[in-house]
């Protein structure tokens, strides 16, 4: 059935009619906008010559994109000779809309009919592509009954819309459109150039002179068995109104569905943005992921382990021509290419007037890099190989594998279905290729189109997930980058599950088979994003690459062309002269892009503050399903100027802030040979540095979301570096403030800085070049606290600087990876509860005759069900390890590690607590039963009492087959064993129910009630606390605490108890039987509980981040173990108390002297901050006031830190990506469908399915283009 092209017209007519009627009835009705779009999806662009030189209309003549000029603001583009048009598919109506972007209007193809009439192109148009010569537009239609390609002569594209003396016929009929029928519904189409000699052969020898020099590559959808998905190369349709079969030049046949030979090995890392040095592995500067007894030391790399993936520094530094196997035309950087090359990047044209002047700069940078003098000093991280994942043996599931059905050496997803391609992107040049995404096979097919009669699949990119190695990845949209300055080309691919981006290196057009996605460099610095993904706040709907440039205006010679393609260069050697001229024989440099020169580039701008939105170079643009677009740094030509200042060996800020080398001489223009960019020596009166003075490096890194703000405390845009909002506050268990100066209380101090590092928070004004890191830090001598002025408002409070004796509470902010910082309130709580998203509820039973007790989310697991008699029936989904539980064995290992570190730091360990148990004996998470016992009136207390019918006398439970007596009979373990409690009055007599209740409430407390006092019964009754001997993903084995009451008969307190090792050190003991029986019965075999970090501080982000940990489930045993991967090293949420005094100190409450830096196992460190928690004074010498619990001070205590003592602080200045709200100021709903750059305009076009229109964003201003959206 032919599509009905007039439907749209009828709808518009109807709408117009309705509008007319409405207008006649209401007083002042607001007419709804007349819409011509309906389910728009894809877009392409064409330039047409539509006016003569005088602005008079002429029949449209196709033109090159470079002929279409952008329309300046406030200028009517109508008279322009060349107009740019957007061609937008209308999926639901089978039409193509033509939008005149120069004149800002939707074209009405048939003015004889009311409304805006569009071009009929067949049902369900799936893609649109304009021929390179602009003469034709091709649209694929996936009409199931009539799959076809339609070819529109662009001379007719405007229908009768032009005011020509002789009106052209409207383009409203299929008879005016060439078409041919496909064998299968198409999903995508691209136009590929044909070899010069291909025309004759393709034309069958006819050699029609008008035969186009291109063909169409069409992605055909599978039609079930026997009709596989494939890529067909066809001749463009030429027969008007016909629907004969398309002339097929060649077909690939079925795309590959085999993963034979594919492995789960991770990919290489992409460049980290530290282009002048190889930052390498940072593991030496980071804490070990776990105690040494749990995580073995990484073995030396050798045979039998996966080859370490070299960081790409060498490739980056290798200079031109040193990377990849791409041929010259493919790999040349954008400033060495013509505009046509850039069309390989999803039709985004390159710099229209790209200059080559940057080449010397670039070469200079390359020449300098990699030289011995460029290498970082000894303070730089060692360039050690990353830890091979396979080497992690104990309790560490290997990353990148070991998931069900998947090994590290091969992928196994079971039988795969037939390929189902979802998207296709063209790589023109030589050889012409297309990359085809697949939804059912985790690959991207690489198709070689060199011979259009024999298109063939030559390789596959493998879509894997290191975070979820067992997952079969489905690939959605694709975008191919241009060649970057380091001669790289990247393919961005959408992982449809979650909508993150994978990055593939396709510098070599034909990559090695099953090349995996690249990994983020230094993933440990931001463990919140999967190591092989770029992730956003919402799933990516579509992705593209876009180019923008701010040319250097002519300097002196007004007739000179504007300069483009220049790297920003902060080198003093490159600075312009006093008259604005550039040094070096007038050679253009990038110095005009420096922070202190930015006004030259953008006279209306605000100097340095405009850097984040000043896009120069190539950027990825991800449009998200939440109606926003985010910018990804790919090849940021301002990157050398976005940095701290200085960058020397003694002023490092973050892990990657490696010192730059000095320039080798006055002719050295290398933008990365500028350790000090402050031009004080040149211009003492200058007030702005040549660089942005952002205390991170790199600020702009390839394939990383771009910051929306300067990463600093900026006087214009605000504080956009991480900082602590105020001094950490100590509170008691009720949240009441305590004095942080009380020596009996623990104190949280910032870690000390390692040698060569500075903390930008300690400077009075991070952006004041006269008070920068060249000078003396403005740290108060006595307390190590920064002085306060306008410049450091809200900065972190740094304490214990080297040599300092400061004790003011504070944390050390990390300045390693800006994207890791998230605004968050933090609570650091002694023996705090691990947060969970829902209550933990478990079944209670024992497999050891109640020598220990099991809390199970399920029934008796097979691993503990050997006894069988106590197996019960209760289950949920498992997931205890995800909570981050560390049992006694891990606690002991951590304690051992900490004690070793204390010895190394010459700290006393637990020696200051002579009566206390060794650290390892009280370092264990414990379970606290939080449920109330049932009210005394509940029928439960009468359960299983003798009565009529046997099991009766209790609740009349549900009569269904899954509940009540039937279930109880079927599951013996579901009834509690009152007999085991050992009291006859609990099973017989007149007051059995009341006796049961009384005993339980005496032991575990009455049900919570306001009259009980301010504390919950759970927190008040310590018998509810059960240390975890063994933690499994689905159950916990617990024992009891013990304590020595001593002479003072001190009761059990959280400060004096330790884990009871039991008879054989496994926590089991016959003396537990009665108590555990009682626990089971008082809580009717089932209880809710929480987990506390016994003997440790729990660090919990309160607004979403939660508790960071790297506890995982051992696949073999189900045990909760620590991940030993280095990339998890900063996922930490626990801290020990560090003993306060030095050994032998006269005053045990002396100020701590040990220098605990953030890599010390005693320090707490996560990706955002670090601190050391110093314990309060020796409780025997201090009169610790234990409020609220009747604390028996002193005897047996191993800590002065009371449970739920808490330090609280807020961190602000988290990373904010550069985000464009596509809904504009009205916050209109937007559901992006596709995105493409408008090649002629340096604009971004987003097709929106919610407003059903075309949104245009000006890449210069990142604002909406006037008159947008079109619909």
């Amino acid at each position, binding site marked *: *059935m032919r599509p009905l092209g007039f*439907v749209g017209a009828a709808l518009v*007519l109807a709408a117009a009619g309705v509008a007319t009627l409405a207008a006649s009835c209401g007083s002042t009705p607001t007419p709804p906008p007349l819409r011509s779009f309906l389910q728009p999806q894809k877009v392409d662009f064409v330039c047409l010559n539509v006016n003569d030189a005088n602005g008079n209309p002429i029949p449209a003549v196709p033109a090159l994109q470079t002929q279409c000029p952008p329309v300046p603001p406030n200028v009517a583009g109508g008279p322009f000779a060349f107009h740019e048009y957007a061609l937008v598919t209308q*999926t*639901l109506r089978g039409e193509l809309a033509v939008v005149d972007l120069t004149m800002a209007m939707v074209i009405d193809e048939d003015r004889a009919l009311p409304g805006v009439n569009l071009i009929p192109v067949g049902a369900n148009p799936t893609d649109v592509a304009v021929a390179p010569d602009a003469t034709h537009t091709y649209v694929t239609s996936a009409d*199931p*009954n009539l799959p076809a390609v339609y070819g529109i002569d662009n001379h007719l594209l405007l229908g009768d819309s032009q005011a020509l003396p002789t009106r052209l016929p409207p383009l409203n009929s299929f008879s005016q459109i060439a078409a041919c029928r496909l064998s299968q519904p198409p*999903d995508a189409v691209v136009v590929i150039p044909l070899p010069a000699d291909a025309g004759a052969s393709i034309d069958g020898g006819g050699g029609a002179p008008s035969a186009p020099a291109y063909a169409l590559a069409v992605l055909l959808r599978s039609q079930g068995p026997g009709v596989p998905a494939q890529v067909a190369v066809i001749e463009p349709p030429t027969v008007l109104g016909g629907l004969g079969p398309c002339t097929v030049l060649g077909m690939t046949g079925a795309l590959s569905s085999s993963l034979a030979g594919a492995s789960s090995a991770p990919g290489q890392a992409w460049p980290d943005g530290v282009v002048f040095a190889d930052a390498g592995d940072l593991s030496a500067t980071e804490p070990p992921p776990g105690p040494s007894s749990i995580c073995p030391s990484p073995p030396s790399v050798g045979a039998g382990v996966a080859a370490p993936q070299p960081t790409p520094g060498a490739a980056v530094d290798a200079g031109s021509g040193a990377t990849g196997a791409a041929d010259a035309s493919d790999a040349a950087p954008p400033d060495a290419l013509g505009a046509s090359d850039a069309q390989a990047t999803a039709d985004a044209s390159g710099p229209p007037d790209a200059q080559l002047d940057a080449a010397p700069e670039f070469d200079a940078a390359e020449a300098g890099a990699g030289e011995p003098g460029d290498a970082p000093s000894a303070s730089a991280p060692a360039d050690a190989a990353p830890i091979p994942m396979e080497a992690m043996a104990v309790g560490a*599931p290997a990353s990148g594998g*070991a998931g069900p*059905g998947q090994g590290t050496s091969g992928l*196994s997803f*079971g*039988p795969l279905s037939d390929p*189902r391609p979802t998207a296709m992107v063209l790589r023109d040049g030589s050889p012409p290729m297309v990359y085809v995404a697949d939804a059912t096979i985790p690959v991207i097919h690489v198709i070689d189109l060199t011979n259009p009669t024999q298109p063939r699949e030559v390789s596959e990119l493998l879509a894997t997930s290191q975070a979820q190695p*067992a997952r079969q990845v489905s690939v959605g949209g694709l975008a191919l980058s241009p060649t970057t300055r380091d001669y790289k080309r990247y393919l961005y691919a959408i992982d*449809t*599950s979650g*909508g993150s981006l994978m990055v593939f290196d396709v510098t070599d057009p034909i990559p090695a088979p099953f090349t995996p996605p690249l990994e983020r460099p230094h993933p440990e610095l931001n463990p919140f994003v999967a190591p092989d993904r770029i992730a956003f706040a*919402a*799933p990516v*709907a579509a992705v593209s690459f876009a180019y923008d440039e701010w040319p250097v205006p002519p300097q002196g010679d007004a007739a000179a062309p504007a300069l483009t393609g220049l790297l920003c260069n902060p080198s003093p050697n490159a600075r312009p002269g006093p008259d604005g001229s550039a040094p070096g024989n007038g050679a253009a440099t990038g110095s005009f892009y420096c922070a202190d020169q930015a006004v030259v580039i953008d006279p209306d701008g605000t100097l340095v503050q405009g850097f984040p939105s000043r896009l120069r170079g190539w950027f990825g643009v991800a449009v998200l*399903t*939440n109606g926003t677009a985010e910018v990804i740094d790919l090849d940021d030509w301002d990157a050398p100027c976005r940095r701290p200042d200085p960058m020397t060996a003694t002023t490092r800020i973050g892990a990657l802030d490696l010192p730059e080398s000095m320039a080798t001489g006055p002719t050295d223009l290398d933008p990365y040979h500028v350790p000090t960019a402050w031009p004080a020596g040149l211009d003492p009166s200058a007030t702005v540095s040549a660089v942005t003075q952002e205390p991170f490096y790199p600020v702009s890194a390839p394939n990383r979301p771009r910051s929306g703000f300067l990463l600093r405390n900026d006087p214009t845009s605000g504080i956009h570096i991480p900082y602590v909002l105020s001094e950490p506050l100590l509170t008691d268990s009720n949240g009441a403030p305590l004095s942080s100066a009380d020596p009996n209380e623990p104190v949280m101090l910032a870690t000390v800085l390692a040698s060569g590092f500075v903390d930008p928070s300690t400077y009075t004004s991070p952006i004041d070049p006269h008070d920068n890191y060249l000078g003396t830090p403005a740290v108060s001598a006595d307390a190590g606290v920064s002085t306060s002025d306008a410049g450091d408002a809200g900065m972190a409070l740094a304490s214990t600087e080297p040599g300092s004796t400061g004790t003011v509470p504070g944390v050390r902010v990390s300045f390693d990876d800006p994207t890791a910082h998230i605004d968050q309130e933090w609570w650091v709580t002694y023996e705090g509860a691990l947060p969970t*998203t829902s209550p933990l*509820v478990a079944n209670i039973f024992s497999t050891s005759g109640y020598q220990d007790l099991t809390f199970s989310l*399920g*029934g008796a697991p097979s691993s503990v069900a050997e006894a069988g008699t106590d197996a*019960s029936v*209760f*289950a*949920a*989904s*498992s*997931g205890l390890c*995800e909570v981050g539980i560390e049992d006694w064995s891990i606690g002991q290992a951590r304690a051992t590690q900490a004690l070793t570190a204390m010895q190394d730091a010459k700290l006393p360990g637990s020696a200051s607590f002579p009566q206390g148990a060794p650290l390892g004996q009280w370092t264990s998470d414990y379970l606290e039963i939080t449920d109330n016992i049932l009210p005394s009136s509940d029928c*439960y207390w009468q359960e*299983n009492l003798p009565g009529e019918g046997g099991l009766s006398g*209790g*609740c009349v*439970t*549900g*009569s*269904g*087959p*899954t509940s009540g007596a039937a279930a109880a009979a079927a*599951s013996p373990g*579901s*009834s509690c064993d009152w007999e085991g409690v050992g009291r006859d009055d609990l099973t017989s007599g007149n007051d059995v129910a009341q006796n049961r209740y009384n005993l339980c409430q005496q032991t575990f407390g009455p049900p919570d009630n306001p009259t009980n006092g301010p504390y919950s019964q759970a927190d008040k009754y310590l018998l509810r606390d059960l240390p975890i001997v063994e933690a499994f993903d*689905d*159950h916990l084995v617990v024992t009891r605490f013990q304590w020595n009451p001593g002479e003072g008969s001190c009761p059990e307190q959280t400060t004096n108890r330790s884990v009871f090792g039991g008879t054989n050190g496994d926590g089991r003991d016959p003396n537990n039987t009665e108590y555990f029986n009682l626990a089971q019965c008082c809580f*009717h075999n*089932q209880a809710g509980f929480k987990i506390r970090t016994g003997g440790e501080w729990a660090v919990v982000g309160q607004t979403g981040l939660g508790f960071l940990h790297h506890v*995982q*489930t051992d*696949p073999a045993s189900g045990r909760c173990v620590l991940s030993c991967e280095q990339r998890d090293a900063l996922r930490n949420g626990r801290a020990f108390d560090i003993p306060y005094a030095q050994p032998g100190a006269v005053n045990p409450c002396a100020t701590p002297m040990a220098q605990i830096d953030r890599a010390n196992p005693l320090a707490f460190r996560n990706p955002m901050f670090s601190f050391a928690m110093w314990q309060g004074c020796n409780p025997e010498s201090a009169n610790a006031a234990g409020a609220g619990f009747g604390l028996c001070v002193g005897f047996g205590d191993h800590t002065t830190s009371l449970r739920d003592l808490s330090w609280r602080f807020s961190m602000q200045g988290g990373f904010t990506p550069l985000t464009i709200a596509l809904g504009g100021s009205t916050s209109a*709903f937007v559901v992006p*469908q596709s995105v493409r750059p408008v090649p002629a305009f340096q604009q971004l076009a987003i097709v929106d*399915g*919610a407003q059903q229109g075309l949104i245009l964003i000006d890449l210069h201003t990142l604002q909406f283009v006037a008159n947008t959206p079109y619909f």
Partner: protein
Amino acid sequence: MTARATARRLVLQAAFVLPGAAGVSVLSPACYTSGAGGTNPPTTTFYYPVGLAVSAGGNVLYVANSDFDLQWNGGTIQSYDVFRLRHDTAELIGANFLTPTSVMDSKNLIARLNKDIAFLSAQGLEAWAPNCQSSPNTFQANGSRLPLGEACSPPVDSTAYIGGTLAQPASAIIGAFATDLQLSLDGTRLYVPVRGNGTLTWADVLPDQATSIPPDEPGQPGEGDAGSPGTNWPPPAPHGSNISNTPDPFHFYCGPGDQCDSEHETGPVPTAADTRDVILPGEPFAMAQTEDGTAVAVTHQSSQQTSVLTTGLPACVDDGSAPAPACMVEPSSAALMPVDPSMQFVLTGVPVGGDGLVAVPHDLDSSIPRCELVGYQTPCVRPAFLETTHSAAELDLLRYYNDDGSSLHRPFLVREAPYPLTVSQGGTDSRGIAIDDTPRRACKARPGANVTECAQLPARVFFASRTPPSLVLAEIGEYNVDGSYNPDQLQFDGNVPLQPGPSKVYLAPIVDGSGHYALRVFIVCFDSNEIFVYDPDAGEIENVITTGPGPFAMAFDPFSLDDVAQRKLVPGDSRQQDPSLAAIGIDISASSANGPASLKRYRFAYVASFTNSYVQVIDLDDSVVEPCPGNPTESCNVTFERPVFTLGLPTVPKGS
């Protein structure tokens, strides 16, 4: 079922259609004195229908009417004869493709249709002509033909299709403001959340079979037009009911007389099995059953609550072989007799306005199987639900505990995880939801499949959002970082734009051009009078079906998800293809290829227009292609995904 029996049944039906149509206005409103005050609602016509369900055998369409404007003293549940409805729909479609060669030929055709189909005279047969040739409504202003089915389906009297008899129509009065209707997984019990009286009203029904034509005459099960009953007919009597007089699947067993009694209204009063003594909060709205059918969760429109009730039915397992709704009763519980549903627990703290609820599918072959199937040996997973809300940008995972592990045996729900909605700007108004596990089923059906790996493929989640109007795509069942599998981990993937007012979401197949099942997602857009048809494999909107005003609920001919996942060939409906149909005047051989002879066992969807109180039948068969009417040189199927039959007279609401 014999051909003779079929013919006899159709003749009998035709015989009572016209009198029924004439008498309906007299009989309906005034004959009932329920004692509840007011006027009883109509028993054979629709009134603000809000819920549809088709029996597992495909012969009964259950309808819940809400009495939204309180014109009557309650709503109703009704049963309609889908066997006949399907036949007549196919006959009308076929007739629309015929081109009579003479006036007499045309008259004969009209007469034949007039005999079989009870067009409502007001707008009916006079307006219809073969191929709609004389209808002015079949052409647009530009001369293009409107889609055939849409234009050529004048209203038909619903009375002719009501189950039972005109004297005793299969209709029962329930409270006002029903919001949904679901059939239990074993096909024996209907559940209707009723806002007006704050109950989950329920009724037992006798399941039918796909191989038989159900009885529609009292006292004759297994005889005459009762079809071929098989060994399982009649099924056991509903709990506490006497089926001796009305053993047919149209009948509602919810109390004596024509009204569901208080015994079948769960919620207001604690029962003996409700040991917490909790009652159902107000404004029950959406509901979902656990995978084994033993419990049902109910959302509440105006409170932060979700309730859970036990259904009282034996646990059953959907092994994929049977058409939904249907499942095999677990052997261990097969001997247990159903008991009454009972209220169990009210979960608090969920966002206000739970609008959509669905059970999370947990695959039987997963490494973390359903607990109830493995004796609760870990690792296993408890039943879970996903709940949408119109007040928060999140999706909530609710976990159901049957509590048999404790000594209390008091089932309860836990709000285990709120998944913040990352897709969609705003995203605070989410509605209907459906989950598709066919990727798992398809994978397992492949030769050499590793069933465990297949079982752990993500299931696709689809739900409607009004902020913005879109179908949100997600997945559930993901791997953890350590390689372990979490069957309830949710991840949002994207969204697809829709027209304003999406409400309910359904998962059902079409019959594709080659005659095979092909899965689609149907999204009902109440405000824009449209149903979007989304192809989840192609990731695109396949079509938009324009319906009558205010579409709300849908139902489909029965199908098996396994058949759909494997894209099996849709079998024909042998009952409808019986040659002896000619005995009642239907010449199959002369019919169009789209006529009853082409009827497949699965072909139609049913859409209730809430606003105008009628039901439309949608043709979902794209495999029957024939020369286009009026243009025989082209082949087409102009009725595919179009309304093709209008059951009941569209009625504009009073006061509008």
